[in-house]
């Protein structure tokens, strides 16, 4: 039974299944619920936070946290407050540059892009965060900010985030350095910044941006979204490769260049890792052909660890 559950859970989180859910909201909930069932129940999930105190209800607060017992006794509306409730600000940075538009055709005939994977993950992460009373925000960017949703945990925040995630990727390249600077300008509190990108940018530039974020005491999680093909370069016959970010075209025999290409990719990833580890930031490779469960677990672990530190 447990194995069947596990299997079904894995089915929920794989791109083949997720790609069939058009609605981002449903997709996110699907991810979270799929994750919550079976083996994905984790003590670090964060739902079992401790009650701290009441505070009077003000217009706009989430009614889910109303303490009805108090209302029954006093006819006054009070909200439960938890220990972490006011400690975590999360900002999701979703890369919508041209390179994120790359995807692989799945068995079901649908194409699952890196951007789809990133936005699904972002939606799930923000859903979980908002469920935890965290304030979640979103910035969709490429060479500039394409869409911004300020961090909040209001009722409409989730919808706002989902709508923002519908932004389509552009052809321009990523400019991570500039993006981090712009993010810094917008953040007033120390936050957990989750960057969902393929990080196809100069490692030095990324490192410089991370350094600035570190200086401002922000926590960063780098989720490097990569297509399986980008990681394995499985092409055999001579092919004309066309860049998605206006890099031009290249005719070559993939077999002849495969090893060299993979070395370049590997070197770049190592550089990113080095930069992130310098600031003790997490860096994770997210394979778009694999289940979303793992990065989700990682995020939750990271979030709980941060909460413990700050608490």
């Amino acid at each position, binding site marked *: 039974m447990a194995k069947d559950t*596990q299997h079904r*859970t*894995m089915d929920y*989180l794989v791109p083949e299944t997720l790609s069939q859910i058009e609605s981002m909201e449903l997709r996110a909930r699907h991810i979270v619920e799929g994750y919550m069932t*079976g*083996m*994905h129940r984790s003590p670090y999930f964060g739902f079992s936070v401790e009650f701290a105190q009441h505070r009077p209800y003000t217009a706009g607060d989430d009614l889910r946290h109303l303490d009805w017992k108090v209302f029954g006794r006093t006819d006054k509306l009070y909200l439960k407050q938890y220990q972490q409730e006011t400690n975590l600000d999360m900002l999701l940075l979703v890369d919508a540059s*041209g*390179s*994120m*538009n*790359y995807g692989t055709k799945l068995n079901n005939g649908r194409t699952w892009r*890196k951007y789809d994977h990133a936005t699904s993950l972002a939606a799930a992460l923000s859903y979980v965060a908002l469920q935890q009373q965290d304030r979640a925000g979103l910035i969709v960017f490429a060479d500039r900010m394409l869409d911004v949703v300020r961090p909040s945990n209001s009722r409409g925040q989730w919808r706002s985030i989902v709508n923002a995630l519908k932004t389509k990727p552009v052809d321009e390249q990523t400019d991570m350095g500039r993006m981090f600077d712009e993010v810094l300008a917008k953040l007033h509190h120390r936050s957990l910044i989750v960057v969902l990108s*393929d990080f*196809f940018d100069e490692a030095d530039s990324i490192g410089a941006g991370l350094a600035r974020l570190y200086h401002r005491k922000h926590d960063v999680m780098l989720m490097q979204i*990569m*297509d399986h093909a*980008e*990681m*394995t370069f*499985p092409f055999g*016959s*001579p*092919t*004309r*490769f*066309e*860049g*998605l*970010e206006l*890099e031009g075209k*290249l*005719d*070559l*025999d993939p*077999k*002849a*260049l*495969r*090893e*060299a*290409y*993979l*070395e*370049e*990719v*590997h070197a*770049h*990833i190592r550089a990113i*890792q080095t930069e992130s580890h310098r600031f003790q930031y997490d860096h*994770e*490779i*997210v*394979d778009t052909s*694999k*289940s979303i*469960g*793992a*990065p989700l*677990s990682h995020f939750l672990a990271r979030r709980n660890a941060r909460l413990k530190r700050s608490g």
Partner: protein
Amino acid sequence: MIQPLMLAISFISPGLAWLGLGAISVPIIIHLLSKRPRKPQPWAAMRFLLAAFKKHKTRTRIEQLLLLACRCLILLLLGLALAGPMLDKMFGLGIIGASSRTVILVVDNSVTSATKTDTGEPRFDAIRKAAVKMVETLEPTDRLAIITAAEPVTAVIAKPSLNPDSFKGKIQNITPSASKANISKALTLALDSIKQVESENRPTYVALLSDFSNGSTPVGPGAASLDGELQQLGKKAVLMMLEPHRSTENVQITELTADQNVVIAKGSRDDTTGTPVVGWRLVLKRFSHDKTAGEQTGVEVKLRDDVVFERVVKWQNGETERRLDFNTPLSETGLYPVTARITTPDALDIDNSRTMLVRAKQKLNILILGAGRSATDQSPETFVDVALAPVADKLGYPLEVKQEDADRFNQKMLEEVDVIFVLRPDRIADNWKLLHRWASGGGLVWVTPPPTDTGIAWPPRMTGAFGLEQKWTFADAPLKHPKLLKFKSDDQTAEEFRRETDLPDLLKPLRVIQHLPVNYDSADTRTILTGEDGSNLMIATDVAPHGRLYYLAVAIDKNWSNLPISPFNPALIQHVVRTAIDRLQPPQIFEPGRQPSLSARWANIKKLDGPNNESVLLEINRTTQNGSPNASDPNNDPPSSNGTTPGQIVVRPSQPLLTPGIYSGGTSALVVNVNPDAGNTLRAPDEPLKKWLGTAGEWQSITRTEPEAVIMKMSELSDYGWELLWAVLILAIIEMFLARYVSHASTTHRTQGIENMAPNTAAKSN
């Protein structure tokens, strides 16, 4: 450099080489087609691809070109290897892998090899040049044997030997001979040579260098075929034959014969002047394809040094043979050499002369072995003596008769004797062998039974000595059975006798009172006289090689018949003596190149003086059990030709008689004449020649200008092919590894580093 290199390389199957060359276009085309992009692929990680491409652009190109070159080279070399490449030695590459060879040269230096070609040079010059050229082709590690095909067939170098170049001198020393060729024997010797080094497993070549005329390779109807054992030759060696010379015209003397070989003074047919005269027949033969009229041939005949006959023959259209008759007087006794010679120059000189011998004798010497001093006026000895020389003045009579006691018969008595009458065979005892030996050299023996009954122990002794034990069977005792004597009607001698006797009507019937019967079972024996009942009364047999034995079953005695007192008696005796002598002492004629077995008459002669002051020693042997004087010498005449019996003395020259002409010793002489057939200078017809040589195997033709071409071609045939195939194999292995390396085939370890960075599956995350 390219042109000499191209000349240095040739191929057995050039088509395959071209195919290999064309095949290299296949990988080139595939390479070009592979570069054509198939479909566009949108790619996000372009920056990395561009970076990798820039870094490895040159290396990748070199790798791919290297792989392409490797594949092209494999196909090219495969084509070349299968095409059978042959490289010229002058580039030094011929030494690599050139295997050691065995070459047997069979050089035909027989009569027609001396035929002059259009340039005036003898055919043998071209043959010798071809032999030298082939030897110069060989390496020091090659083996060479040389065999000459003219009789006596000789292995100049029998066992194939190394350093062939050192034997060029031996080839230069070979000259045309006067002998006919024995190609079969020469090839047999070649086969023996091959067997001596067979274990070395070398490529072996046999080159038959001949002019292939009808004279050297008789392939016409009835010609002897090659020895069947030679079928092995083609399996053991590559057979090569020099291209035949074209036909050349030639006139030769094929016959020079006398109507009598022994002439007795006052006994010849034409005796008007009192000088003996011998009639001659000379035959000229013309070998020509043209056979046109008008050509002339001059001929002269010399008797000793005097020209006795001259004639210019004008050939008629289509005429190939002309017979000339002439007479020569013999003014004195002795041995007369007669030489006929063509005076008109032609292509072949060696067969333009022919020699014969004729002996003029003053008297015939008759020996009667009988009772000796015991003879009486009525004894057989007296009757025979009188019958032989029925004249009072015997001084000038051509028959010299001597009587001796048969008891004391010895070798000394045989000197200069031509006929022996054995009238007392019972007293010969153990000397029958002496008689046989003497007779075999050209003597006539006439045997009659003894007149008195002394037992008949003598017939077995006689038949034993003459080898007639199984052939002649005598009765145990004389048979008293009166009968008339008759000639056999089909006997040539009888016919001649009838023509020669005077007044046949005067002959009274010959009555036989008793006789010692004899029967025979022999093809060599003939009956000359019979009784009226058919019984044999006189028989005769040859005593090989030159003698004759007569047996008259009736003793020359009145108690046996009326023959002694009949006029028939002297007529019969004299006639038999005269005609038999001519037949019994023919000149001994041999072909060049042989070591003939001579009769015991030569036993006292130490050497022969030949033409050109040549001197040849004579050696004496006793025959072995099989009758052969020396079984191991192939030049000996076989036993059947000399009629030798075990223990008999045989005299032979110590070396072959090579030069045509007269070889004399003491008072005897023999003649060496070129075999006329061996002088046929016309080219042997192709098909019969091919069939004749085909017994030994398949023959390849070699040219006179490049005789070494076949050896060069065959010996370098497969060497480089195999080496190229090895090179192809090595290249294929290199290509396999190179392809795998260049293809950058996807393997797990190349992508593990990146894939491991991705989050694990649910199992791990949970």
